[in-house]
């Protein structure tokens, strides 16, 4: 009796196991392209520049990055108008901006993720690929005509290739820019330049001369004191100086740099260009032109120095110029004039280092099983990638929030946004929900620049005339390789960051550069680069 029961249990277990295995295997194969069961609510004739409207009312959950400056409101015109136009209601899961990534990981890990997850910065999607929780969106681009059109029209294929994983697919729908949008540069006190009879510097070498003249006139000052030293010291400074040398360093740190001459990757922290970056910054620090605290101080301290006239040059983007420095200076030194100057040119020539890809959207794998899957992809395509959808998300409803005349956008007089209509009683973001970072980014050049001040337009004009920094060829690692790579990468990066600082601040003599490169080798820099090069060759072979 006992034996028989026992045997039955064993057989049942074995059977179950087999079923699971079969189920697991059958998961991959026929999944491919059969979307017959997923077309409910979709438009049969959806296409480029066509208004998407679901054939039945639909609702999709979306992870919502709640910004404290325009907290989520249910009565935003954005929601009601979106439903009116597309027949889709979005159900936001509101997550505070402060800890968005953490909550996203948790929700995905717990299998509780919303279908649409925007505000994902590449490469953070890598962490979720192996778990199979997110959708390989590259398989479904056919459902997204506007996206495909923009990739072709703006020649974005090389950029998209950098998103690919080792299986050749990509899992993120990035925001797209027609032109690279360079944001960060430096701001210079032009009244001081005038006083010293100097021109606005165009290259890093000219900046050196300018700083020297400033120091000669104001010996007590550190002419250049920079901010943005988080998360790694000198993040922004190293990023823009590195860019002028053709490297991605500082907070845009990329450990592997493509060497077009040798047709292989080399370790960024050991390159000759990186040495030049360090030598240059070391010179500024040694001659007391660059505040050594630039690498460690808080943003606020850097702002205070600028506001008190203790420094004249600072890292800047369009917003910090208008929102931070100018109001600061207006209160402390009313006669000061500060301008953001075009990115300084270095040995890499006149380049624009900005990427044309932005943060983007991950889609939960669960969405694939929904009967509304096709409709959802069409909806995303319309809202995020069609000209009409992008205009709607950014500017709102014509007549209500803005008017458009010959391609030029104007806010309605009672609507305010970044101080364009200071007397407006309503705010485009706070009261209407448009211009929201969750839904609105990238797009055509004139749309991207539609909020820019004439001054910023001038800056962008100079930058757009420059050659975009070429995209590195793809070298996607497999899961195992990635694990191994990060074991090597983390201590390597720490070592680079520490020694970069030591070299620049003069705590380690530059004559020890070769010793430093040797230390990197001892920390497996060669093995790491070998792995990347192997992945690159494999990708070339597999994808032609």
């Amino acid at each position, binding site marked *: 009796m006992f034996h028989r029961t026992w045997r039955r249990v064993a057989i049942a277990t074995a059977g179950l196991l087999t079923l699971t295995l079969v189920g697991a295997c059958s998961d991959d194969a026929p999944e491919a392209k059969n979307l017959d069961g997923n077309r409910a609510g979709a438009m049969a004739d959806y296409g480029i520049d066509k208004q998407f409207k679901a054939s039945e009312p639909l609702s999709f959950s979306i992870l919502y990055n*709640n*910004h*404290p*400056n325009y*907290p*989520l409101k249910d009565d935003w015109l954005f929601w009601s108008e979106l439903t009116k136009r597309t027949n889709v209601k979005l159900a936001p*899961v*509101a*997550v*505070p*901006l*402060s*800890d968005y990534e953490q*909550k996203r990981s*948790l929700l995905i*890990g*717990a*299998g*509780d993720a919303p279908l649409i997850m925007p505000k994902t*910065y590449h490469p953070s999607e890598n962490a979720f690929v192996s778990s199979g929780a997110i959708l390989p969106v590259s398989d479904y681009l056919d459902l997204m005509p506007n996206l495909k059109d923009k990739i072709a029209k703006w020649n974005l294929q090389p950029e998209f290739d950098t998103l690919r994983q080792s299986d050749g697919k990509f899992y993120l729908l990035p925001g797209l820019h027609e032109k690279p*949008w360079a*944001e960060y540069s430096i701001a210079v006190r032009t009244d001081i330049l005038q006083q010293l009879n100097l021109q606005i510097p165009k290259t890093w070498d000219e900046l050196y001369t300018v700083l020297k003249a400033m120091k000669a006139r104001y010996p007590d000052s550190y002419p250049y004191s920079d901010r*943005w030293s*988080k*998360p790694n010291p000198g*993040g*922004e400074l190293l990023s823009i100086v590195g860019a002028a040398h053709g490297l991605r360093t500082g*907070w*845009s740190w990329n450990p592997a740099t493509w060497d077009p001459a040798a047709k292989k990757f080399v370790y960024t922290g050991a390159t000759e260009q990186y040495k030049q970056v360090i030598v240059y910054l070391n010179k500024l620090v040694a001659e007391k032109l660059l505040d050594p605290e630039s690498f460690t101080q808080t*943003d*606020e*301290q850097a*702002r*205070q120095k600028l*506001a*008190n006239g203790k420094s004249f040059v600072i890292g800047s*983007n*369009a*917003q*910090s110029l*208008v*929102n*931070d420095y100018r*109001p*600061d200076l207006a*209160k*402390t030194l009313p006669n000061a004039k500060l301008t953001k100057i075009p990115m300084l040119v270095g040995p890499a020539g006149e380049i624009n280092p*900005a990427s044309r890809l*932005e*943060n983007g959207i991950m889609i939960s794998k669960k969405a694939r099983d929904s009967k509304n899957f096709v409709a959802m992809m069409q909806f995303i395509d319309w809202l995020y990638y069609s000209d009409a959808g992008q205009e709607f998300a950014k500017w709102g409803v014509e007549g209500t929030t803005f008017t458009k005349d010959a391609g030029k956008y104007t806010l309605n007089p009672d609507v305010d946004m*970044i101080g364009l209509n200071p007397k407006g009683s309503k705010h485009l*973001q706070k009261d209407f929900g448009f*211009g*929201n*970072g969750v839904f*609105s*980014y990238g797009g055509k050049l004139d749309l991207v620049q539609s*909020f*820019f001040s004439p001054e910023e337009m001038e800056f962008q004009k100079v930058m757009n005339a420059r050659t975009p920094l070429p995209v590195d060829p793809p070298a996607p690692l497999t899961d195992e390789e990635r694990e191994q790579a990060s074991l090597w990468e983390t201590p390597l990066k720490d070592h680079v960051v520490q020694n970069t600082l030591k070299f620049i601040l003069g705590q380690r003599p530059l004559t020890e550069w070769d010793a430093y490169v040797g230390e990197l080798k001892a920390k497996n820099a060669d093995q790491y680069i070998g792995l990347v090069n192997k992945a690159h060759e494999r990708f070339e072979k597999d994808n032609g």
Partner: protein
Amino acid sequence: MVTVAPGTAGPKTTPPVRARRSRGIRPTRGYRVFQAVNGVVLTLVVIVTLYPFVNIVARSLSDEAPIIAGKVNLVPQGFNLTAYRLVMSDPMFWTNYRNTVVYTVVATAISIVLTTCYAYVLSKHQLRGRGVLVGIAVFTMFFSGGLIPNYVLITSLGMKNSIWAVVLPNAINVFNLLVMKAFFESLPVELEEAAAVDGLSTYGTLLRIVLPLSKAIIATMLLFYAVSFWNSWFTAFLYLDQQDLLPVTVYLRNLIAGATGAQSAGGVAESDAVQAAATIQAVTIVLTTLPILAVYPFIQRFFVSGVMLGAVKG
């Protein structure tokens, strides 16, 4: 012979005897040096801990310009209250503030009841299986299921997006539990025996004898729990998806992140431009800390030692 001395139940005992009451015994030299060093060190500690707080208060009352110029230290410069008006005019701030108050009160009440019951039981040496019960509690100090299993548990219990997700999961803090257990164990057994002789049941003993004698520890626990619930944001952040359910700590955290978030993201859309001013952060911090600060003086009077002095004679 065991008696319960009258007048020991309340906190209002005679003030602690002063060390240097008379000129009779002169403190030794070593003791005076110790006193002096002690005084200096403690004063420094007070300055170090007090300075940031006073600075924040001064900033919250100051004009923007002196803050930017780095001129605000301990005294507000260019006194104004606009920032207070601005923060207080945001309805979401008050909604979240109310949530914090409700969560703190409910959670503290639940925690105190559960912790007291558990600790009292554990303090009884004659209880069988006591070691196992202690073990169960202590086990959770060292091992936990981890974030995702906890999340799945709370979600499948249907507590997500409700107050219970915040007030129940951390109801018993094992450290507090052990402190309380130790306190109950230090109560003289004779007191309870006397109560039993006089005819009190187990619950009667707990409620009429033990608890009134434990005001000091209960006040301590109240403070520990209230402060930790008031300051906590993580559980609420995990289990609540609607901003009108969030406590004010998450609101504050998000506000500060919004002001400093530009760097971490690297490239930020221009729509994220407007940055919260330094004053507003200071104001929010002050408004959030004030109530819990105000609780201290009221609870402090329960921190009296020697409540039980002379309770047991014999």
